[in-house]
């Protein structure tokens, strides 16, 4: 499902070049749950944004669902992202001033769906993640756990094949972290392909994790 072939990512900054990834190769099969572990600055987030084609590699080839995403036009990449990838961000990245409903609406807007389908999809995730009662509240007024559920609901609303989660438990207490694990398990049961970038040991010995890759100074082992 996800394949990296000798992928290098170099950031060119005024202070010089930063080699975030050098010649990284790895793969995650369809329906697998992979964990990328490594300390801060090791390149985990960089890998996730390459998978989502939010940035392009300096060198190398990336296949996602057998598509060579590097060669896609920007519009095509957007459409691909819209249908196939659900992103759960570090710190949620909700539209804080907008309501829960509007946050959930955002990924549906470019699809041009009819009213009923839009409402159906929103109702469905509101119910699934127990946030119906918060529907019209601004996202910033929600508790941390509720914000996380909105973020996950937003990532899953278009029923993507691939879910990418960046430090999903970084700001959560033990209870909420466990709640996230439950959600992960459900995604796994739904045959989704999931990549979690984290340095939280909680993920390392979960029995339903298929692979753990260690990201270290731009190399993956």
């Amino acid at each position, binding site marked *: 499902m996800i394949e990296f072939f000798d992928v290098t990512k170099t950031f060119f900054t005024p202070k010089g070049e930063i080699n975030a990834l050098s010649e990284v190769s790895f793969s995650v099969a369809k329906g697998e749950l992979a964990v990328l572990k490594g300390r801060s600055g090791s390149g985990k987030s960089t890998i996730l*944004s390459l998978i989502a084609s939010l940035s392009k590699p300096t060198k190398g080839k990336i296949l996602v669902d057998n598509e060579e995403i590097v060669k896609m036009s920007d519009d095509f990449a957007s459409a691909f992202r819209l249908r196939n990838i659900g992103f759960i961000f570090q710190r949620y990245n909700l539209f804080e001033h907008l309501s829960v409903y509007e946050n959930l609406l955002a990924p549906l807007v470019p699809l041009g769906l009819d009213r009923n389908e839009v409402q159906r999809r929103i109702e469905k995730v509101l119910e699934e993640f127990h946030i119906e009662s918060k529907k019209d509240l601004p996202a910033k007024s929600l508790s941390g756990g509720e914000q996380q559920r909105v973020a996950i609901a937003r990532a899953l609303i278009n029923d993507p094949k691939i879910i990418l989660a960046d430090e999903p438990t970084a700001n959560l207490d033990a209870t909420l972290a466990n709640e996230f694990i439950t959600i992960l398990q459900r995604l796994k049961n739904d045959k989704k392909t999931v990549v979690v970038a984290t340095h939280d040991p909680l993920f390392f010995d979960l029995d339903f994790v298929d692979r753990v890759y260690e990201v270290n100074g731009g190399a993956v082992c």
Partner: protein
Amino acid sequence: MNRYLFDFAISSLFIAKKKNLFIFFMLSTLVFLVASVVFIDTSLRYEVVNAAKSMPEIIVQKRIGQRLRDIDIDTVYKLIEIKGVQRALPRIWGLYRFQKGSVDFAVIALDGIDYDYTQELQKVSKLYGKRLAKGIVVGSGVKQFLEKNYYTKYCNFLLPDGKVKKLDIVGEFDSKSALFSNDVILMSAQNARELFGMKRNYASDIALFIPNPDEVRSIALKIPQIDPTLRAVTKTELISRYESMFDYKSGFFFVLFLVAAFTFFMIVSDRLASLSSAEKKEVAILKAIGWSIQDIVKEKFIESFIVASGAFFLGIVLSLVYVFVLGAPLMSEIFSGSFPLRPQLEFSYHVELREYLFIFLMSVPFYLFAVIVPAWRAAVKDVDEVLR
């Protein structure tokens, strides 16, 4: 049009609420300024053109060393002999200054005879006839002024020899062309001569009526040949003189406008250079959840179009009220400053679609551009920063 895109754009306005509100008021102020100048200008131009309809084609003046002198009425007989001149009419008029309030009014002599300064004045002359011999008929502006100074029935004029002449106020006249008759006092030729200390056989100038407009130029050239102290002022010159006066004034406002536009541009170019971090983040999130560049640009377009056209309408409405209801206080003073006859201007509405279009093009696209370009730039580049 995707209805949800529209909904989302409206909600999204609140993400940078303060900035949008600020730009909204800046832009409506700018529109208000430009619209007010344009409205006043069109109104005044209309008045000039309208008044010009009843103007004589040529006014003959006597000038000795740049000074305007009274003209001998016998000159009429020489002028009427020029081929193409239909009628030559001596006119008696001048500015009279009231010491109280030091306001100038135009005094025009109106004898019930064959004197058509304008057709409207002809009507007045018919209406009041002989009563004008002992009285005056005043424009509405004069009437207001006199009432303020407790002259309701009559008015005392100071003659050049120091005596006082009392004239009854026998009537008031309203005019369609407010620009030229609001501040006019009409009286008999005899009283006017007395008021200006003019000798019996003299007039202020002579108006020539020429049926064929093609002949005006050549006739104007013949006039100094009769007498080198005579000068011909054509209607075209008169109109362009008025218009250049407005151009000067609107030029002044144009500078004012440029200053305002420049300030606005400074603020907007701040946007051009960079989006606020909240806006950058918004664009990045949108892109990460699958919006294309096109979707983002469309959304920003709707958003800024709402701000810009809202500001445009507010500016226009405020300006319409300011100019046509309130009479443009402050601004009208600058416009009327070089009008000796006009202590107060009234503006009538003669704005056409093309003026609105001009104001619209001066404000809205500019702002749209300033919002869309940075949004587009933020959307095109890699947005992975938002992830860390």
